[in-house]
């Protein structure tokens, strides 16, 4: 056997293993309630065990991967007829991050009612399996299916604790998300009627057919539809309610990871099928509006969870602005901001679990013993990085975005830069108003309240941030590789086509 044949054989094995992180959590999710009836202790550890298994698979693939993107034809049916997973640096990274964050933010069962807890476990598994699928999907139809699965799982998770506020927020979320699904499906249908294919690589060859009013409409519909999860303006009005009422670990997962996977899906479609200027302008405009509305609303927020939720909308606005820039400069900035937010926001939401109530009531919150002081310091670290204070990673992410915007030499991009810089000032103001308040002496003593698990998870994420600060140069090189790969539409098409040819040959 020649070397390339061996490699191809390896790829084949790896390719099929690639399905495991999608299939295993989904399967486990359906089996978990049954397992719970049979053998409770096992059901309780089954979820993390499955995720750990998936993580091993993904890390194994990652460590044996030669760095070249590849496509996996599921069931042996080659695209464009069959459906495929597309594996490149970015999808592999996000799939791995989904699993890692799933493990890190695994919901703890702390109520007496075990069946509720197991339901939460099953839904989390469903959410994670579907998200991995969404990150890997190589065609629009699969994307839509996984997206729906993500939606269903998150509806359940938002309302899982059975509180009234949770139901109300969940219902609102359900309505907006449902509308989003309709929009996305309409967009997918429009594309299918005009091109006859849903495979993204195939669409990459047919961009001419989509370069019209109808193509743009289809993109707008898909972006708005998938944008519900990605907190895209204006379909993000569910965010403050849901994030402030859902269990914090779920919020952390939704805000931190799931939103990024949805962004990834939109960006795949944008890069491959809509290379034109208009689609990017749409994302730019929506991103800018997201920044403005998110940060301004956060400035006026009266409680911590909503403040973080609106800040999240603002940050995702930045991500969209970044991805709207053509070439790998934009993809670089987009990935950098998304990764940064992915580390920080879950950490902040976990800290916020014990900082409920009005923001004005947080006085002295960091002066209640060692645990609360530590939590306060971690909050300050996250806030500094969010504002973009060097040498923290947030600075480099913002610098790359600012560089990309100026390089476009257009008034719109300069306006976006102005908005983004102005929003940072607003952001610094509200974050540090809270920080200063927390470090004031308390007017009345409060019991120490930070849960060990949440604090440890937040601290771990803060640790990641610090490591990222120290290793910023290699991290930058790594993201540059990812960006180069993801921005290379022709490479994507070639990869899928040649892998399909090999698949047929087998």
């Amino acid at each position, binding site marked *: 056997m020649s070397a390339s044949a061996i490699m191809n054989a390896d790829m084949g094995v790896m390719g099929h293993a690639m399905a495991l992180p999608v299939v295993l959590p989904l399967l486990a999710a359906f089996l978990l309630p049954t397992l719970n009836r049979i053998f409770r202790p096992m059901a309780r550890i089954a979820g993390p065990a499955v995720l750990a298994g998936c993580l091993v698979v993904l890390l194994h693939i990652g460590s044996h991967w030669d760095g070249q993107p590849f496509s996996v034809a599921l069931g042996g049916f080659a695209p464009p007829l069959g459906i495929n997973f597309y594996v490149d640096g970015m999808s592999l990274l996000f799939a791995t991050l989904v699993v890692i964050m799933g493990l890190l933010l695994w919901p703890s069962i702390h109520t007496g009612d075990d069946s509720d807890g197991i339901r939460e476990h099953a839904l989390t598994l469903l959410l994670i399996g579907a998200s991995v699928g969404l990150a890997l999907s190589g065609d629009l139809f699969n994307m839509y299916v996984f997206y729906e699965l993500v939606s269903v799982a998150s509806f359940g998770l938002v309302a899982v604790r059975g509180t009234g506020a949770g139901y109300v927020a969940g219902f609102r979320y359900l309505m907006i998300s449902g*509308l989003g699904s309709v929009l996305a499906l309409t967009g997918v249908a429009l594309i299918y009627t005009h091109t006859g294919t849903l495979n993204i690589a195939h669409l990459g060859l047919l961009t001419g057919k989509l370069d019209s009013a109808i193509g743009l409409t289809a993109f707008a519909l898909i972006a708005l539809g998938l944008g519900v999860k990605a907190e895209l303006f204006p379909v993000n009005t569910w965010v403050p309610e849901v994030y402030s009422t859902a269990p914090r670990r779920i919020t952390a997962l939704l805000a931190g990871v799931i939103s990024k996977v949805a962004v990834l899906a939109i960006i795949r479609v944008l890069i491959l099928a809509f290379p034109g200027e208009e689609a990017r302008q749409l994302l730019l405009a929506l991103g800018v509006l997201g920044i403005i*509305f998110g940060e301004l609303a956060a400035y*006026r927020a009266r409680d911590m969870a909503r403040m973080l939720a609106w800040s999240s909308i603002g940050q995702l606005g930045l991500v969209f602005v970044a991805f709207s820039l053509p070439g790998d400069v934009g993809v670089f900035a987009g990935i950098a901001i998304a990764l940064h937010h992915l580390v920080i926001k879950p950490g902040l939401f976990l800290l916020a679990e014990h900082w409920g109530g009005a923001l004005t009531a947080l006085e002295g919150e960091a002066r209640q013993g060692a645990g609360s002081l530590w939590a306060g310091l971690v909050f300050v670290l996250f806030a500094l990085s969010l504002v973009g*204070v060097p*040498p923290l990673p947030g600075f480099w992410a913002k610098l790359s975005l600012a560089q990309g915007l100026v390089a476009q030499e257009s008034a719109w991009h300069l306006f976006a830069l102005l908005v983004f810089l102005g929003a940072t*000032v607003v952001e610094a*103001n509200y974050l540090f108003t809270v920080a*200063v308040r927390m470090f004031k002496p308390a007017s009345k003593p409060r019991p120490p309240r930070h849960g060990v698990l949440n604090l440890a998870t937040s601290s771990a994420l803060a640790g990641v941030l610090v490591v990222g600060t120290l290793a910023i*140069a290699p991290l930058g090189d790594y993201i540059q590789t990812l960006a180069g790969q993801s921005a290379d539409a022709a490479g994507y098409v070639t990869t899928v086509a040649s892998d399909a040819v090999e698949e047929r040959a087998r």
Partner: protein
Amino acid sequence: MDGLGLTALTLTGNGSVVGLDLLLMVSFLTVVVTLGGLNLRITAWLATASYGVQLYLLWGLSPALLDGAVAESVYRFNVLGHSMGWRYDALSAFFALITLIAALAAGVYASGGWGRGFQKAGGAPGLVHLALAANLFAMLVLLGSADFLSLFIGWEMVSWASFVMMVLARPADRDGALKYITYATAGAMALLAALVVINHHAGGLGYAAFAAAVPGLSATTLALLVFLVGVAFGIKMAVLPFHLWQARAYAETPGPGTAFLGAISARMGLYALAVVLVQLIGLTRVADLNVFGEVLDARDLIAWVAVFTIILPTYTALKQNDARYLLAWHGIGQGGYMLLGLVTGTAVGSAGGLLHVFNYAMCQAVLLLAVFSVVHRTGTADLNRLGGLVARMPLSFLALLFGIIGLAGLPPMNGFVSKWMVYVTLVREGEPLLFIGTVVGTLGTILSVFKLIHNMFLGSLRLEHESVSEAPWTMVLPMMVLSGIILATGIMPGLVLDWVAAAQATLGLPMVQYELGGPEGLDMLWVGAALLYGIGVGALLFMLGGRSHRVNPLDNYAGGHFLTAANRYHYSDNFYAGLMHLIGGWYRHTFARLESGLVAFVNWLGAGAHGFFRSMPPLLAMVVVAALVAAWWAEGGVGR
């Protein structure tokens, strides 16, 4: 680097850590020491000793730096395609010298009795030492920036270190720090914008690359850059209209912190402005930018901003009834002289501006230290609740006296020399209006520093201060040393002009001609001798005059009447009633109103954003319908 007229002589030896890296490393280790959980007393003195060591290290580097050499750090980093490094030249050394003197004075001051008093009052002196060490390190790093990236990083470090210092204020007075950090973030974002514009046009963030690209930049781009760096550095310097944050933020900081920040922190803006505007862009290029047609160019605009920065805050200072606020407002005004001197671009004028950085720093440090000594003993800085302390705290009085003479710019103190150089330049350059502006400012300074010394030390002693004694030696010592520096550099300005001239050379400005007694046309040795002679004659008359008798400091004399302790008389409240009757109507609080208007506007927008998120579903339905209609229309439009 040749393009910048710098000799790239490395003072780092054979790759061994000497010179600059050692200085920065010692500074960094000091921060670590103050972070660690050592005994407070040991930490305080260890940190203070370290400031002395750093000063010594800088002194060791200085002969070569003043000769035009550049000390480069061996550390370089490459991140995201940008390379960044650090190096010291004569300009950095000049600012670092002032910073280190101020830090040493503040360190000694904070280490003894002041720290114990602060702790008793519920403060955390350990954190003050930490903040001081962090501020010093941040500033030393900023002063060593060798490209725009390290400049930005140093800039942010300085901003946040100042914030840490300010936030150590009493809990109720931390709003000043918050206002500061909002302004500072705005400044940082302006700088970030400047950075990316520079990167775009120069193809990198190196100083040399930018200097090479400047001749090819269009007037619009250059104007944009001047505007952006002007906003960024202007906020730090608190020039109009960005001055509103400074007085409160500085005044409420714990004592030695106020003295340190007040002396040097805001000057980091001047340093950065000098590097970008003077060294890299060049003042002639700035003067080519027309702001309002032919009437006003960018350099004139900066000069006028500087003059208004001198006048308005100085007269705001005049109205203050808190000694700390009075001095903090003056700090803003004095920054105007420095900027004005620098942008004249002449040998004497720019030297005057730079010299004033040193002179003002010494004066402001001693003034604030003296005020906080009084606060330490009496518990208040309220000018309406003090008076007559000269007999109780004579050394603090002396320090304050030296400080106010220097600040007001009267001979023989150093402030006179630098202001004289600025005045002379304005007259020589044919700028009578600017000159009048500076004189009006100086008049305000003289009036308000008289109010300061009168209301604190002169007049009748208050009953509750009868048992007050002089501040402990750890507080008096730095005041005395600084007073000595003020007098010595006033009579022998040549000592500092050595550094100033070298800094001018670094900036590419014409170098001032000077001798030990001062610049050409002014010999302070003679002025000092004449004053000494006058004082000698006065002393002789005093000695020869009849017997003097001591009076009770509670007694006083006013308007031809002896007032005894039974008749309390203390003229402090509404001190300049007559003057205020004349000019009181001119205080319009325009900038404060503009600022609150802006805040109200952002709040209004925020309320709008809230409304949007509350009432979204109907709007969302409209979006959906619109999108569907558009889709249907597009279908029809294609003709299917």
